[in-house]
C-alpha cells in the first residue's frame, strides 16, 4: 500500500473513531441523563408533599404511615425467611459443593429463579401460602412470597463474597488444625461479611419495592396498622399504584410524595451499603 493511501486510511479511521465515540458516548449519556431526569422529576413533584405529617399520619389525615409500616414489616419478614437459607446455600456453593453436574444444576436453577417474573411468584404465593397453607392474605404470605423472589439474589451475593476471600487464608487455618467448618465460621465468613451484608441489603431493598408478588398475597387498599403477621397490610408500592390509577385522581401529591419516599429510601440504603462495603473491604485484602 502506498504511503498516501495508508495515510488516507488512517485519517478515515480516526474520523470514524471520533464519530463512534460520540455515538456510543451519546448512548451512555442518554441513559445517565434519563436517570437524572427521573430523579429530578421525582424530587420536583414529590418534595412539596414531604412533611413530618405526611410520613407519620394515617391516610384520613393525608399521611402514608400505614403504608410505610406495612412495607417495613413485609421487608423484615422477607429478611427472616430468605437470609438464613440463602446464606447457607451460598456457603454450600462456595465452600462445600463439588464440581459436579449436580452442582451445575443447582446453579442453573438459581439463575432461573432470578428470571421468573414477579407476578408468577405472586401466583405461586397465592396458590401455596395463601390457599394451600391457609395463611390467607397476610404479611406472612407476602413475606414468604417475597422471600422466594429474593432468595437467588442472597445466594448469589453470598457465594460471590465468599469467593473473594483468598484461598490462602483457608489454607492457613486448615494447616493450624482447624476443621473446614471452623475455618468457614471463624475466618472466611467474617472476612466475607461486608459483601454478604451489602448484597443482602440491596436484595431486600429491591424486594421492598415490588408490587406484583404482594398484590394477592399481602396487601389491601386500606388496612389498619398490623398487629400480627396474619394481618393484611398496606404497602408503599401498592399504595402508589392504587392512588395513581384511580379515575378521579384525587391526590397527585400523595402519589409523588410516596414515590419519592420509596425511591429515596431505596437509594439511600443502597448508597450507605455500598459505601460501608468499600470501607470494610479494605481490611480484608492488602
Amino acid at each position, binding site marked *: 500500500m502506498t504511503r498516501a493511501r495508508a495515510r488516507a486510511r*488512517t485519517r478515515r479511521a480516526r474520523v470514524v*473513531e471520533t464519530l463512534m*465515540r460520540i*455515538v*456510543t*458516548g*451519546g*448512548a*451512555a449519556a*442518554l*441513559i*445517565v441523563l*434519563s436517570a*437524572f431526569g*427521573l430523579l429530578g*422529576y421525582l424530587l420536583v413533584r414529590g418534595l412539596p408533599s414531604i412533611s413530618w405529617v405526611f410520613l407519620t399520619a394515617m391516610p384520613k389525615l393525608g399521611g402514608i404511615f400505614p403504608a410505610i409500616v406495612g412495607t417495613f414489616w413485609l421487608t423484615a419478614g422477607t429478611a427472616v425467611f430468605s437470609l438464613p437459607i440463602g446464606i*447457607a446455600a451460598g456457603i*454450600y456453593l462456595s465452600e*462445600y*459443593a463439588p464440581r459436579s453436574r449436580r452442582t451445575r*444444576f*443447582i446453579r*442453573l*436453577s438459581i*439463575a*432461573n*429463579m*432470578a*428470571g*421468573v*417474573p*414477579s*407476578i*408468577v*411468584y*405472586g*401466583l*405461586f404465593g397465592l*396458590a*401455596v401460602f395463601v390457599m*394451600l397453607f391457609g395463611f390467607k392474605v397476610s404479611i406472612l404470605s407476602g413475606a414468604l412470597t417475597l422471600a*422466594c423472589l429474593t*432468595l437467588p439474589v442472597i*445466594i448469589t451475593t453470598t457465594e460471590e463474597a465468599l469467593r473473594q476471600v483468598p484461598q490462602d487464608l483457608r489454607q492457613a487455618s486448615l494447616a493450624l488444625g482447624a476443621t473446614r*467448618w*471452623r475455618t468457614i465460621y471463624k475466618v472466611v465468613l467474617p472476612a466475607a461479611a461486608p459483601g454478604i451484608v451489602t448484597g443482602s441489603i*440491596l436484595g431486600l431493598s*429491591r424486594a421492598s*419495592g415490588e*408490587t*406484583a408478588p404482594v*398484590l*394477592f398475597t399481602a396487601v389491601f387498599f386500606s388496612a389498619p396498622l398490623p398487629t400480627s403477621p396474619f394481618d393484611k397490610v398496606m404497602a408503599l*408500592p401498592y399504595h*402508589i399504584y392504587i392512588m*395513581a390509577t384511580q379515575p378521579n385522581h384525587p391526590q397527585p401529591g400523595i402519589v409523588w410524595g410516596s*414515590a419519592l419516599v420509596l*425511591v429515596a429510601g*431505596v437509594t439511600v440504603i443502597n448508597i450507605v451499603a*455500598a459505601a460501608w462495603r468499600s470501607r470494610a473491604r479494605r481490611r480484608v485484602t492488602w
Partner: protein
Amino acid sequence: MGEPRRKLTGSGRTGRARATETVVRTIIASSGWVAIVILTAIAIFLGTNAWPALSSPVAGLWRMLTGTAWYSTATPPEFGFLPYIVSTLRVTGVALAIAVPIGIAAAVFISEFAGRRIKEISKSIIEFMAAVPSVVYGLMGVYVVGPAVKDLLHLTSALTALSAGIVLAFMALPTIVSISEDAMHAVPSDLRMGSLALGNTRWQTAYKVIVPAAGSGIFASVMLGMGRAIGETMVVLMVAGGTMDLTWSLTASARPLTAVIASEMGEVVQGGLHYSALFVIGLTLFVITFAANLAADLVLERQRRRWRR
C-alpha cells in the same frame, strides 16, 4: 523438648469437632437444594392450578393459545388469550428495539472508551436505575412518557404499546448494559493490546475483536433483558392501556399477559375456571421466561469456560 506426646487419633476434641462438622455439613448441603425445590414447586403448583382450565372442554390449551376472544364472564366462557400474547410481543418488541442498540452501544463506550472515573459513575447510575421500583417507572410512563408520545405523534391516547415499550426499555437497559459490559471486560486484554499494537483504533478494536469475542455474553444479556421486559407487570398495567383487541399496531393500547393476571386475579372466584385460566397464562409466562433464561445461562456458561474466569 520434653513434651508428653499428643495422640494422633481421635481425642475428645476432634471427636466433637468432627460431629459438629458433619451436622453442619448436612444442614448446609440441604440448603443448597432449596433453589431446585422452589423452582420445581413453582412449576408443579402452576401446573396443578392450571390443569382445570387446560383439561376443560370449554377451554383447553390449543383453544386458549389460538383463541382471540377472552370473555371470562360469558356462558359459556371463552379464554382465548392470543391477543394478549400479541400485546406482550408488541411491547417487548418496542422495548428491545430501543434497549438493545442503545444498551450495547453504551456498553461499548463504558468498556472500551471511558476512563476510570466515567466508568465508575456510569456503573453506579446504572445500578441506581436497576434499583428503582417498577411502580415508579409506571408513574413516569403515565405522567411523562405517555403524554409526550401522545403529543409528538398526535395520538388519541397516551396509554399505548409504544409508551409502555419505551418505559420497558429503560427497565431492560441496566441488565443489557451491565451484562454486556461484563462480557466485554472479560475479553483478555492481550487481544485488545494485540489489536491496538497492529495499528487499529479503539473503535476498530471494539467492533473487530471485542464485540465478536464477547458475542455470547451480549446475546445472553439480550435474552435476560427480554425476560425482564416480558415479565414486567406494573409498568404495562399502568401504561399500556389495556385493550382486549388483537392488533399489531404500536400506537394502539395493549394488554400483555402479565397485566391480565394482575388486573383480573383480584376478582375471580378462587378455584374456578377463570382462576385456572389465569394460571394457564402464568404457566405460559413461566415457560417463556424459563426458556429465555436457560438459553442465556448456557451461553454464559460457555463464555465463562472459554475465558476460564
